C-alpha cells in the first residue's frame, strides 16, 4: 500500500502551484494511475478529504480536529498495489508525479494472516 502525504502544493520552498500547473499536474497524476490500473498493478486508490476527527480516550471521549491539517504528515490518499515485494512497490512509488511538488509517499506492506 502507498500512502500519499501532504498536499501537492505545500513544501518549504513552494508557494503553491499556479492554476495552470495544477491542471498539468492533474493530467499527469491521472495518467500515472490509469496506466497502473490498465496494467493490473493498481487494485484500488482513493483520495481522502482533509476534514478529520481524531478520537482518543475511553469510548472516544476526546475528539479533536487533529493538528494542522496542512501538515505534511496528513494522509491525502492511498493506493493498493498488486506487487510481491517492497522493492517493486518502492520503484512504483518513486514514479508518482506528486513527489515533484513536495508531497511524500509512504510504502507499507498490508500485513497478512497467513503466509505461503
Amino acid at each position: 500500500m502507498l500512502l500519499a502525504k501532504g498536499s501537492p502544493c505545500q513544501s518549504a520552498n513552494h508557494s503553491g502551484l499556479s492554476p495552470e500547473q495544477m491542471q498539468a499536474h492533474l493530467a499527469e497524476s491521472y495518467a500515472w494511475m490509469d496506466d497502473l490500473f490498465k496494467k493490473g498493478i493498481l487494485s484500488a486508490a482513493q483520495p481522502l478529504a482533509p476534514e478529520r476527527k481524531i478520537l482518543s480516550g475511553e469510548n472516544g471521549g476526546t475528539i479533536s480536529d487533529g493538528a494542522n491539517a496542512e501538515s505534511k504528515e496528513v494522509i491525502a490518499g492511498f493506493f493498493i498495489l498488486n506487487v510481491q515485494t517492497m522493492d517493486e512497490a518502492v520503484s512504483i512509488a518513486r514514479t508518482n508525479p506528486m513527489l515533484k511538488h513536495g508531497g511524500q509517499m509512504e510504502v507499507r506492506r498490508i500485513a497478512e494472516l497467513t503466509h505461503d
Partner: protein
Amino acid sequence: MSQRGSSAGEVADHFFRHEGAKVVATLTGHLGTHRLQLVEDVVQEALLRALQTWSYQGVPANPAAWVVQVAKNLALTALKREQNWNDKQDGIAAEHERWLSAPPNDMPDETISDDTLRMMFVCFHPELATDAQTALALRTLCGFSPAEIAAAFISSETAIAKRLVRARQRIRELALPFVVPEPAELSARLDGVLHTLYLLFNEGYKASAGDHLVRADLCHEAIRLVTLLTEHPATREPRAFALLALMLLNVARFSARTDDAGNLLRLHEQDRTAWDQTMIERGILCLRHASQGGTVSIYHIEASIAATHCIAAESSATDWPRILALYDQLLALTGSPVTAMNRAVAVARVHGPQAGLDALDSIQRRYLLEAHHLYHAIRGTFAAELGHPKDALTHFRQAAKLATLPAERDFIARRIEECGGFTPDAAAPNGVKPLQG
C-alpha cells in the same frame, strides 16, 4: 476505485485558470467586493481539492459545478468561523447563508458573463493605480498565480503578492460596488477599462523580455476580456471592437516576429505564410464592426495600420501611402513624439529616406526620443539607405548603448555588421571600452 469519473484526467484548456476566475466573480457578486480576499482564498482551496480528488477519480461530469459547490461550502465555513471570532460583527447575512448552502444550480452563461463584466469594472476602477489594476486583472479575472504575474512583469512574486493585498484592501476601503456603471458614467469608465487592457496587451506583445509563454498568455487574456466586452450589450461599442481588431491583427503576426533562434525580424524579413490568417480575418471583421459608429478612436487607427500590413501579400506590396495617411490621423489625435517617430518610417517608405530624416528632425519635443534606442536605429537605417554608412554606424552604436533587451541588442548588432562595423562586444579595439553598457 468505486466511482471513477467518465472523462479521465483532462479538462478544457486553461480550465483551472478560467473556471477559478469565474467562481471568484460569482462568489464576489454574492458576498461583496470587501470579501474579495476570502473569496480568492476559498477558490484557490477549491481548485486544490479538485486537483486532489480528480487525480484519483477522474474529472466529474460537470467540473465547473463541482468547483462552485466546494468553494461555496468553504466560504460558508470561513464566514461562520469569522462570525464566531467576532460576535459583534454582523456575520453572515441570512441571504448569504441561504445561497451558500443551496445545492448547485446550473448558472446561465449570461449570469456568468455579467459577473465577469462587473468584476472588470471593479478591477479597472480609476481609483486604483494602473499597476494595481493590471495585477488584479491577471489574478482575479484571468486566474494567474502571483508567480506567473511576476514572470510577466519581471517582478518578484513577493512584490506582486503585496501589490495584490494592497489592491484588495483599497477595494475594501473604497467599498467599490460590484456593478456595471450607470449609463451616464459608463462611457468614461469603459475608456479606462479599454486603456488598461491595451496596456496589458502591449506588455505581452513587447519584445522578448520575461517569460515568453506567459507573455503570449497576456495577449490572449487581453483578447479574451475585450471579446467579452464586445459580446455584452452594455459595452459592445465600436471602440471595443476597434481595440479587439488591433489586438487580433497584431497577435496574428506574433510568432513570425522572431526566427527560430529568437532573433527579431524586420517586416520584410518575416515569413508571411506564418501569419495566422484566421485571426487576421477575425480582426478585419471586428474592424468592420468598429467602423459602424461616428467616432474614430486611436484603436481604430492603429487597427487600420495593422490591417494594412496584414493584407499586403508581400512587404513590397504594402500600401505605404495609406499607412502614412493613417499615421497623420493618429498623430493629430495623440500628438505623441513616439507616434511621430513611427510616422517618419512611413514618410521614408513613401517619399524616400531623406524625407524620413526631415520628418524626424521636425518632431516636436524630439528630446523625449533621444533616450529611445529605436529613434537612433531608425536614423541609422535612413542614413544607411542614403549611402552614408559612417553616419549610420554612429547612430546604430548610439542605439546599441540604449537598448536594454538582449533581442534588441542582437538586432542592432546585426545592423552594425551590415554597415561594415564591428559589433562592440564581439571585437572591441584595444584599450577602447566596449560600447555596450
